């Protein structure tokens, strides 16, 4: 027995979201860019023409060579192939983004869930700490942390992580506040479910759309932040290929050796753009899902 008008043959939420995502040409373009960059970065050892140029030594016969065969994007001042170094730079940037987000997201999400659901003093303490971090401009905070740490890849990631989690705490706090007033949370409470169950099994699944969208958008921003730090000389050190350092290094030779800065800059632009398009597409797709 069912209610009148019940056989609603609606598409399930998930497939509606997928359809909305792939129906948007910009999201698809973003996805193509992201997938291409990730595949290139993963297969860097095989797809780059001069993998030995990752180190300090290049082709001394072709230092600062303009784009021409066999160096299609030109070489840097040490005679190293720019294309090779950009692909390896992508690999480093992506590893950094994944590590930073893998640490910052769970911390921020747990803080946001607990503060949003418990309220009262718990909320007050957690959210004021979050606000302190949010009040300082992110790059300044990261620079301050890097100021008293060794400029290494690991410390760079630590500095960026320290300023990234509060954004997740703030986002998930707001989502949790809204979800906590929903009837299904009240139902779980009256049934006698534990706080852990309510936070992680009832509310968290409803935060996933917000988390996934923000993480995708953030991959681009973390890469940009890491590049900014290394541009300022506070991040990854030579000879490790890093997109930000390459732009900084090449800027000294502008405009004569324009390729030194231009290609790495375009590479940063492309990866940030790709992840942003995918992030925007995801947000719209989740909205379509309702």
């Amino acid at each position, binding site marked *: *027995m*069912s*209610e*009148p*008008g*019940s056989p*609603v043959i*609606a598409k*399930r*939420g998930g497939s509606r979201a997928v359809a909305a995502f792939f129906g948007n040409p910009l999201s698809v373009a973003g996805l193509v860019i992201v997938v291409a960059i990730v595949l290139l970065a993963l297969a860097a050892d095989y797809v780059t023409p001069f993998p030995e140029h990752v180190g300090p030594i290049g082709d001394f016969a072709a230092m600062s060579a303009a784009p021409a065969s066999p160096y299609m994007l030109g070489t840097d001042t040490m005679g190293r192939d720019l294309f090779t170094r950009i692909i390896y730079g992508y690999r480093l940037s992506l590893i950094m983004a994944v590590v930073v987000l893998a640490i910052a997201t769970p911390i921020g999400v747990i803080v946001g869930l607990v503060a949003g659901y418990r309220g009262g003093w718990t909320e007050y303490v957690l959210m004021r700490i979050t606000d302190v971090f949010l009040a300082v401009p992110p790059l300044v905070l990261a620079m301050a942390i890097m100021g008293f740490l060794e400029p290494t890849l690991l410390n760079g990631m630590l500095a960026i992580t320290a300023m990234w989690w509060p954004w997740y705490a703030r986002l998930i706090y707001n989502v949790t506040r809204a979800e906590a007033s*929903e*009837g*299904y949370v*009240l*139902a*779980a*409470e*009256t*049934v*006698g*479910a*534990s706080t852990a*169950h309510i936070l992680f*099994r*009832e509310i968290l*699944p*409803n935060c*996933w759309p917000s988390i996934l969208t923000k993480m995708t958008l953030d991959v681009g921003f973390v890469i940009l932040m890491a590049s900014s730090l290394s541009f300022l000389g506070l991040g990854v050190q030579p000879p490790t290929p890093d997109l930000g350092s390459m732009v900084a290094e090449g800027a000294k030779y502008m405009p004569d050796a324009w390729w030194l800065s231009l290609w790495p800059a375009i590479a940063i632009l492309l990866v940030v753009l790709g992840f942003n398009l995918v992030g925007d597409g995801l947000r719209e797709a989740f909205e379509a899902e*309702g």
Partner: protein
Amino acid sequence: MTPILELDRLGKTFEADGHSVVALADVSLAFERGECHAIVGESGSGKTTIANLVLGLMQPTEGEVRFNGVKLPGLRSRQQKRAIQLVQQNPLSALNPRRSVGASVRLPLDVHEIGPSRERAGRVAALLEEVGLDGEMARRSPRGLSGGQRQRIAIARALACEPELIVLDEPTSALDVLVQARVLQLLHRLRVAHGLTYIFITHDLAVVRAIATRVSVFQKGRLVETGPVEAIFSDPKTAYTRQLIGAVPVVTPEEAKLRDAIRAGSEAAGT
């Protein structure tokens, strides 16, 4: 026999911005086992405050709530929580959109470890069938289900706790008339079959006349009148109750048919 639930000089005052608002004052009321006790009154009469106090979602500022003769503490045991369940007004928000229907109904079974875990899926299907749904619905998402179907699922979830008392907070007010009649029939059938006690909170006196055995009328946080449903409707003692009843038209032939059908537990009514 001890009443299943007693409110003893119960009071609740809210403090806000230096003002205090009395939501409930000096309410003493007993609920007998197996009855469907309607709580009626206008908005702001204290109906929802009673529900929240009975469910332990807020603490009284005066008096106490006794369940089977025992005072309910501020922090209730699992057993005490399990015994008193709730069916909410809005079936659209009562189910988690990101969990399957089966997961929602199974939750109480897992929380209270009711039955061996390998038999719980079967128990979920049996509960869904008991409220008139297909057991296969357990695998579906609540999205795309009608209000009536969702309310039946919420009722199945409450039943899964094997409660003694269910607080029904306007359970049919968000449903259209036809669906409302069927859900009321279901509720009546379950009460008789499981020996449940209902606290039925509503402002719809036609529904009260159809399903309740006793009625308590509230106004501005105070109990105005209480008694068997026939007595209250045929011979209201206070002007306020007369006024409330006067706002409802006399029993129409359709309403009488619905009431008789619900009381008879017939599945034919409302169609």
